[in-house]
Every structure is written in structure tokens, then in C-alpha cells.
């Protein structure tokens, strides 16, 4: 109950993935030359000496998109349990419920749209 073959399989495959990732890296570490000094560790900016910090201020739109995603992604998550049971459920009530749920999703897209979130570039106050 607590630990099933699925868990085991997942761990096994993840370990295989780790092996697959680390193997080449270790090989490369063995084969590769190990030069030091000079500007070898300088951040790569097409050969120029880096200017300023690598942290630029992004447009606030990035954040807004991220926020919308956060909200949507998890909402869609709720549909997964529904999806497996939907065909078995009789009557129209399941549809009504899904309809309500999805119309709220659509409503929120409409809201964002109307609020100009998708207009780019934009300065959101």
C-alpha cells in the first residue's frame, strides 16, 4: 500500500536517468583538458567584456503571464479526476458542472483579455 511497484519503477527509471546523465559527464571530466587562468571563466557575451549585471529588469508582463499560468495550471488539474469519471456518470448534471467550471475558466481569460494583459508591450500600473 505504502510502497508499490509503480514507485519502485519510477525510482528505477529516475536512477537510470541519473546514470544516463552522470555517465557522459564523468567521462567528459576524465577526458577533457583542464585549462585555467585568463578570461576563461568570464561570462560569455560574444567576446566582449561583460557590462553590468546579468540581472536585467524585465517587463512586468512576464510576471503577469506567470501569474495567469499559476492560476490556470492548477485549475486544469481539477479536470483530471473528472475526466476519468465523466463517461461513467449518468445524466446531464456532470455536464452542467463541467460547463460551470470551464465557463469560469473562459470568463477569466476574457477578463484578462479585457484588462489588456495580452496587449504587448504594456505598462501595467
Amino acid at each position, binding site marked *: 500500500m505504502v510502497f508499490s511497484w509503480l514507485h519502485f519503477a519510477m525510482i528505477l527509471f529516475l536512477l537510470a536517468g541519473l546514470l544516463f546523465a552522470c555517465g557522459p559527464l564523468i567521462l567528459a571530466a576524465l577526458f577533457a583538458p583542464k585549462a585555467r587562468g585568463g578570461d576563461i571563466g568570464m561570462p560569455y557575451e560574444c567576446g566582449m567584456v561583460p557590462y553590468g549585471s546579468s540581472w536585467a529588469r524585465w517587463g512586468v508582463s512576464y510576471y503577469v503571464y506567470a501569474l495567469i499560468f499559476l492560476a490556470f495550471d492548477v485549475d486544469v488539474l481539477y479536470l483530471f479526476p473528472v475526466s476519468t469519471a465523466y463517461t461513467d456518470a449518468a445524466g446531464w*448534471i456532470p455536464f452542467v458542472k463541467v460547463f460551470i467550471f470551464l465557463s469560469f475558466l473562459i*470568463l477569466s481569460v*476574457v*477578463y484578462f483579455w*479585457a*484588462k489588456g494583459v495580452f496587449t504587448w508591450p504594456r505598462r501595467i500600473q
Partner: protein
Amino acid sequence: MSHITLIVPELYFLLLVVALMIQSCGTREWKPDVEKWLPFGAGLGFFVSIVAYGSQGYLFWDVYKVDMMSQFFKIVIAFGFYVVVLNASRKKTISDEKRTDYYMLLGFSTFGLMLLASCVELITIYLALELASYSMYAIIPLRAKSKGAAEAGVKYILFGAVATALALYGLSYIMASQHTTYIAELAGKNWHFADNPMAVAGLCLFLGGMFFKLALFPFHFWCPDVYQGASNETAAFVATMPKMGAIVVLVRMATFLKPGLEVTTLLAVLGACSMTFGNLSALVQTDLKRLLGFSSVAHAGYIMVGLVSGTPEGLAAAAFYALAYLVMNLLVFWIISRVAVDGRNLKLHDLNGLYKKAPVLAFSLAAGAFALVGLPPTMGFMGKFFLITSAWGHGYNWLVIVLVLNSALAIYYYLGLFRHAFTEDTASDSSPVPDNGWFASAGAGMLAAAVLLAGIIPAPLFNFAVAAGKSLFGIVAVGGGH
């Protein structure tokens, strides 16, 4: 679906929110002025919830119970929303294009609170609570370019999130040890610490989440900051409405808080700490809203007094006090909003000479302040009186003594409001000129009249509350509502 008529008030508010949302999506040209119709809509909501007061029944696999208690609180909440909308309809602190959204969020929060009033299952309670909270988190920073508002917002939501997490953690313990989340079934379980430590720990944590909303002592940090940071109109909402939600849940859960249980004692101790701490801190405040913030911490403590007795009367007293608290605070905030015409934060000395500048406001402020103290003949006194009468003789007499001593303590700063408004003449030049129009005066006057009337003739409201309290315990209400 067959009982859709039971949730007419909720549906009405949902409709209101959707209407607001549609309007807020509309183009600038098309947009009618939201303040022109919303007060009527909110008033109708109040009316609808009054009409629906008698309905009873279960919905949604019994997680949603429409009973006297829920209807009582729905009426209270709808009333609060009505007043808040009226209060905010003259605000200057938010730009035009955001107003509709502001009201939408207010409405959404109210909708969540209405749902909360009926929930009788812990997960559902949690959901409804969050529904109510999120919109509120969003409206607090809505104050043009104010640093303080942003700070208040972030403090509120971070503390809120922690409280939520703790509450959920507690919920999981209750699930693990009592195997049910229905309040009705939980009421029959054993809540002694010795027998079931995990359940009691879980319950405490879950209650912690409610205490956060209520701003009870160890969870009160946000309260003064949020009041101070948020705009006056928003503060009026935050100070009153979410507490109704928390109280209704606590009232429902108090059915299994028998006196003598560790949890009950904890509740009592927290209540005592809360009132003492709140009052002591309020003594030294000069910012009006901050003062009210600490005072609401104290009031949260008072409400605990009604809950610990574990009798229908106690719960009814708590419910009645909740109503009183709502009306009193809305009254005071109404006056604050009217006095601070430019939306600034008021200091105590800004009230100087108010009796001359706006006599009706000043008189109403007096009514509000004395109601908050608990002086007769106001609603606040009746509420407090019911609380201590219900709690006396159930093993928590010391709590009652603490309460009355605190009332004496509280006098000092509430009297400050009164003193500045009535006895100080030397208004500084920078003090705002209060809004003295018919709208301001009528609103203040009516709320003050409500405070006084309900203090002189509390019987109808209180009988309703008692009937509601008894219905929680399964005692058939006899002749309630009249």
C-alpha cells in the same frame, strides 16, 4: 439542484459579482457609473437575505447546511456589504477604471463569506474561507501608490498563508484521528487531550486559522498594520466582514467545545490574553485606524467569552456580539471615511472640534465609541452583557472578570475619540474638513440609530440569535424570530 431556492441569497451575490465583472470588462465608453446602481443592488441583496431567513435544509451531500444560524449571519453579512458599498461609493483613493474591479472583489469576498456561513464540513469551510480571503488579499494594496498599503497587503497575505497552512495541517490531524470532517459527527467525538492528543492538537491548529481571520491574540500581528495601511474604505471591510465568517465557523465548532476541555480552556486563555493585549496596545495609539485595529483584537477576545460556555445562549450571545461588532465598527469607519475626505489616515487630533464642523458625525461617533466600550444604552453594552451572562457559571468566571476589567481599561482610548470630537476645540489647520453632506449625515445617523435602537430593544434580534443557537444543538426553536 432541487433545493436551489435554499441558496437564493448566495446566488444573488454571485449574480452581482458576475454583473460587476461584465461591467469591468466593458470598454471605457460603454461603462456606466458603477456607483449609480451598485448600492441598489447591494440593498436588494440585503433584502433578499432577509426574505430568505426562514429557509432550512441540507445541500451538496450535507456539507452545506442552511439553518437559522447561517441565515442570521447571511443577513448580517449582506447588511455589512450594503454599508461597505455605500461607504466606498464616495471614495477618492482609487482611480475610476479600477473601481468596478474593486467592488467586484468586495462582492466576491462577501459571496465567499456567505458560503462560509453555511458550511458544516471542515474542508468546505476551508475552501469557502479561502474564497473569501483571496479577494480581500487583493483589495488591500489597492490604494493609489501608497507604500503602506502594499506593505499591509503583503503582511496580511503572508501571515494569512501561514495561518492557512497551519489550519490545514490541523485538519489533517483531525482527519487522521477522528476519521470525519463533518462538524455534526465531530461533535460526538472525544476531545480530551489525554484520550486523543492528536485530534486536540489538530483542532487547535485548525482553530488557529480561524483566529487569524478573527485577529485573536497570537494571530493578530496583521491587524493594526492592515487597518493602518489599507485605505479607509477597505479597512472598513477588512475590519468587519471576515470576522463574521470566522465567528460563524467558531460558533458552529463551539458546539463541541464543552467547558472543561483543554481546547476550551485554551480558547478562554487566548481570549483573555487577546483582550488584555489589545486594550493595552490600543492605549498608546494615535493613528485612529491602528487604534481600532488593536481594539478589534480586544473584541475578538470578548467573543471568545461567549464561545467557551458551550451553551446555545453562549453561541447566541457570540452571534449577537458579532452583529454588534459589525455595526459599531462600520459606524466608526463610516465616520472616519467621511472625515478623511481626501482618504488620508486620521490621527486622533484630526477629530478635534468635530462637534462644530459636523455635529451629526460627531454624535454618531460618540454613539459608536460608547458602543465599542460597552456603555448602555447601546448595542455594544447589550452584546457584552449577553456574553458575560452566558459565560458566568460555566467554569470560566475568571474570564468574565477579565472581560469586565478590560472594559474599564478600554474606556480610556475610546473616550479619547469622544474627547477629541467633543471637548477639544483647537483644530490644527491641516485637519481635513469633514464631508458634512446629507449622504454622510444620513448614513452616520442611521447607523448610530441602529446601534442605539438595538441597544434599547435588543429582544427581536437576540431572540433570533437564540433560536439560531438552539438550532445548532438540535433544540427545536419555539417562537423564534419574533
